């Protein structure tokens, strides 16, 4: 007897399994309360582990897909940042035009002149290895129309000017550089002078004034005077923080805080061309063209 079961065990187990499955299929083909409840119980028991694994899987999926999209996102982000900068600049220019409309020749004429400005965005790809000089390298060169002497700006104000350009990159001397000198004027008193770069570590600029009693006070906005061959008139440079008499009180020197945060500088605009004799009004303080 035992020999029979042992001999036919595999076919018997197969038949039994098929029978159990057939019964199970026929019973659970339709919704049965107890079966669903059992399933639910199992689900409840394993739900912490299940949800943990799902979370890990989702995160892994997100990570993998993020890595896959990284380069696309990076490119899109760069493009969007450049567009944003451009739009901010345009918005700023527009608001400046509106604010100075009463003092200038009229909104329409000024808008036309501002529309004539040709700017190109560029990213900063390197800084000067020497801390005593403040120059940066941008990723646009002569192939993009960038030439030596062109002004470099951001919506917050003047960054510097191009001092050398190759086909694919250019070197920009920041206004912080000890060799930098920008023709500047106070928007309130119209006092003119030269804004000199100092030690870049201080992050401050020195405003050497031409006149004897220039009537400068802290808080005044300093803009480009247009006397320089490089910078168009009316671009914001910074704000006066301190005024001091030097050289036996013959001249005045002011300390100016640049309007641009040079530490967070990543994208800039190179002024390729602007209509001759025109200017942008300063961001605050008012200016005259």
């Amino acid at each position, binding site marked *: 007897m035992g020999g029979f079961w042992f001999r036919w065990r595999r076919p018997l187990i197969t038949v039994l399994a098929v029978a159990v499955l057939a019964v199970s299929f026929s019973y659970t083909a339709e919704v049965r309360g107890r079966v669903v409840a059992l399933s639910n119980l199992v689900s409840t028991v394993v739900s912490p582990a299940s949800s943990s694994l799902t979370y890990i899987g989702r995160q892994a999926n997100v990570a993998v897909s993020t890595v896959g999209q990284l380069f696309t996102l990076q490119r899109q982000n760069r493009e969007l940042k450049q567009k944003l900068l451009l739009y901010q600049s345009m918005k700023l220019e527009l608001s400046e035009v509106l604010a100075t409309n009463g003092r200038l020749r009229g909104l329409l004429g000024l808008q036309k002149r501002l529309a004539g400005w040709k700017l190109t965005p560029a990213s900063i790809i390197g800084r000067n290895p020497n801390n005593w000089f403040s120059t940066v390298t941008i990723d646009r060169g002569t192939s993009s129309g960038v030439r030596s002497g062109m002004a470099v700006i951001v919506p917050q104000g003047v960054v510097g000017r191009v001092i050398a350009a190759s086909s694919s990159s250019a070197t920009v001397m920041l206004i912080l550089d000890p060799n930098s000198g920008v023709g500047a004027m106070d928007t309130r008193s119209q006092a003119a002078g030269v804004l000199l770069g100092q030690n870049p570590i*201080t992050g401050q600029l020195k405003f050497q004034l031409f006149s004897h009693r220039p009537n400068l006070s802290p808080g005044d906005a300093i803009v480009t005077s247009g006397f320089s061959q490089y910078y168009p008139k009316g671009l914001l440079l910074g704000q006066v923080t301190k005024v001091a008499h030097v050289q036996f009180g013959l001249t005045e020197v002011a300390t100016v805080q640049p309007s641009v945060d040079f530490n967070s500088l990543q994208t800039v605009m190179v002024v390729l061309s602007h209509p001759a004799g025109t200017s942008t009004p300063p961001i605050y303080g008012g200016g005259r063209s």
Partner: protein
Amino acid sequence: MWQFRPFTWVLLYVFGILIQTALLPQIFPIGYVPNVVLSVTVLIALFETPGRGMAAGFIGGMMQDVWAGRMLGLDALTFALLGWAVGYLQTKIARDPVFVPGLVAGLSQVVVVPFQWILLNVAGYHLPWLTFVKPLPVWILFSMFFTPGLGGVLGFRSRRELDGRRSLSM
């Protein structure tokens, strides 16, 4: 051995200046970016003769000068002298992979900054002394940690040590 070849030095300096101009400005504010060329010069010169240390320093300094595009020779002179000094010093002191490179690099910063201040003043850049030395603590600390770290990664050894190993293996 690769570490003694001038071509290796050039590669190290290129790598160092790239870090200094592209990576470190993301971390340090403007004017406070530490000098990696100094660390590389100290590392090379610590395992070289004074003459070769000076040559290495000159190459690194000149590369930085060319990269900076201003006052060509400022760093070449500074680092050539530094390379010579460190090369001379290493014959007089015991050498270990951590403390000596760190201390020598920190000390080098203390010496290099006033030296460059004098050179810049001679050249007509009258920069205020107090603001000039303001970032010095940051640079000293950076050099003291970065130089031994870089030395550990590069695995520089002295000629004597390498010759000893070679004779043992033979």
